[in-house]
């Protein structure tokens, strides 16, 4: 026994030969890991462990309270059946179609508007320092505040419609927020209002990072401004498109608060997204297993988008 300890001490000659010091120095070597351990353990338990727990629950028959007897993929079968139940639409069908509409428009409009504003702001604008924060401040607000503000603004009896009526345009009609077929588009409007300024800031940073020499060379070759952007600038901005897409996609899938504050779920739950479906089924309708199954589906959707992205980013970094 003592020989092992001796050889170890010999291997690290700078340490004191007394056994107490050796323990202390070994502790020193372990210290970084000890410091990191609580955070990592918390991540393992409260993120990955809880995800497994949710997956487990989705295969049980849990209603109001968790039950731990596995009963098979019944919750998923129900969701699958509901996926095609369009007449009358099940709330799951409504949630995922809304997700499609909202995700597509929200991401598409934010990218287009963000790029457009960034290009406009990049034309050596006087007052850029004033305009940029105006475009971006909504990102600092909570979705609840955004929802409250837009709810008022879009209310037919109080907001925009009423105002235009007072100005004499009495035929103007805009009641999307009360209309079950259009309410999801009001969520798009408020969502775009909140996030597009941020996308603008990302594109602007990208534009400022482009080498001026390339632009000059293209201009000398006689490229028009439109050609310049289409052929040279936008292709160079590809990494920004990717980052912005990732941010917007995960914001879109996580959107929950905005629907609640803006529409309270819409008439008959017509503005629900999967996140609202999950919350309602788990905590209000006592269908815990179904709620868990929908959470698992949300998680898998985000994973399919994020994991390839993180993988490529981290690999690029370590290369």
């Amino acid at each position, binding site marked *: 026994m003592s020989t092992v300890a001796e050889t170890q001490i010999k291997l690290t000659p700078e340490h004191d030969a007394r056994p107490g010091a050796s323990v202390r120095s070994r502790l*020193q070597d372990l210290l*970084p*890991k000890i410091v*990191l351990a*609580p*955070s990592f353990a918390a*991540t*393992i338990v*409260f*993120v990955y462990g*809880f*995800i497994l727990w*949710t997956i487990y*629950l989705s295969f049980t028959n849990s209603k109001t309270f*968790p039950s731990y007897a596995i009963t098979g993929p019944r919750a998923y079968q129900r969701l699958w059946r509901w996926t095609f139940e369009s007449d009358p639409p099940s709330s799951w069908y409504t949630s995922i179609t809304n997700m499609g509409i909202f995700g597509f428009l929200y991401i598409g409009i934010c990218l287009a508007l963000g790029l457009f504003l960034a290009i406009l702001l990049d*034309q050596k604008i006087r007052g850029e320092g004033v*305009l940029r*924060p*105006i*475009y971006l*401040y*909504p*990102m*600092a*607000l*909570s979705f*609840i*505040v955004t929802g409250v*503000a*837009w709810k*008022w*603004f879009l209310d037919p009896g*109080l*907001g925009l419609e*009423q*105002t235009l009526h007072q100005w004499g345009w009495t035929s103007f009609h805009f009641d999307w927020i009360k209309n079950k077929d259009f309410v999801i588009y009001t969520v798009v409007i408020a969502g775009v*209002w909140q996030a597009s300024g*941020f996308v603008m800031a990302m594109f602007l*940073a990208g534009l400022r990072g482009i080498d001026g020499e390339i632009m000059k060379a293209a201009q000398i070759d006689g490229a028009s401004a439109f050609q310049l952007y289409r052929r040279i600038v936008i292709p160079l901005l590809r990494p920004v498109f990717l*980052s912005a897409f*990732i*941010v917007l996609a*995960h914001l879109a899938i996580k959107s*929950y*608060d905005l629907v609640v*504050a803006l529409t309270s779920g819409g008439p008959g739950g017509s503005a629900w997204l999967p*996140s609202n479906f*999950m*919350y309602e089924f788990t905590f209000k309708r006592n269908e*815990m297993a179904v*709620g868990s199954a929908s959470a*698992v589906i*949300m*998680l898998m959707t*985000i994973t399919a988008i994020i994991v390839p*992205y*993180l993988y490529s*980013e*981290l690999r*690029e970094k370590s290369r």
Partner: protein
Amino acid sequence: MSAVASPARQAASGVRARTLNRIVIYGLLALFAIFYLMPLFVMLVTSFKTMDEIQNGNMLSLPHAPTFAPWIKAWSEVCSGLTCVGMKGYFWNSIKMVVPAVLISTLLGALNGYVLTKWRFRGHTLVFAMMLFACFIPFQSVLLPMATILGSLGRFGVTLQNATGFNFGLGNSTVNLVFVHVVYGLGFTTLFFRNYYEAFPTELVKAAQVDGASFFQIFRRIMLPNSLPIIVVTVIYQFTNIWNDFLFASAYAGSGDVMPMTVALNNVVNTSTGVVEYNVNMAAAMIAALPTLIVYVVAGRYFVRGLMAGAVKG
């Protein structure tokens, strides 16, 4: 075309085209500025109007006789459900939740970033990747297990209370929310500090080590004094996120006098007993928005940098 035009005329038409171009660009920029400012403007003017003026006047007009009454009412007597005690209590709930959560998650993030860049071990990339992925999960996928655990801890807290007369914070909603926000904020704070320390010269750390400085001495004397920008970014990012959170707040402190600001605001706006006082609702919304807006106005540059750092990963 341009080949035959005289240089002078070409220049003149060029100037005209450019002027027109500038007018269009500034016009569009101004239009969008109005689009972004409109809801805040409406919220602000409405919060200073009387109910009379709201019902008979124009949404966009400035208040004729500005009144602070809606703000006072929103602060100290507005109803959330059946309790009419104003927003002030919920405002303090949010403060009590945000401050410890931000401090703890920032400190842990700094330590994690320090270890993951300057004290690397086998598998450090995997550890980081796992913590990073946690930033992106939809919180719905952990909501229910956390509710179960917090519920059990709460019951255990009651037992402790009976046995020792003190519950050690178990079952206290503010403590619960601080815990939840620290756990699920760790990914982002670690990311921020890791990326920042990655660019920090390792030679300095090595030199200090040779001089006999310990792990914590290096952290305190060398890393922290050089981390001010990233600390500001992280604190602002965490503050905004935690203040604005609604999902965790409504799941774990969704009713009663323990609600944070966002949940209380949503309840106030959806309280339908009696006449809906829009001016008071708008004042309440402004009160909920002000802390993050002030941070944004004071430190906008850092706010944007945090968002960017959260967006451009790796």
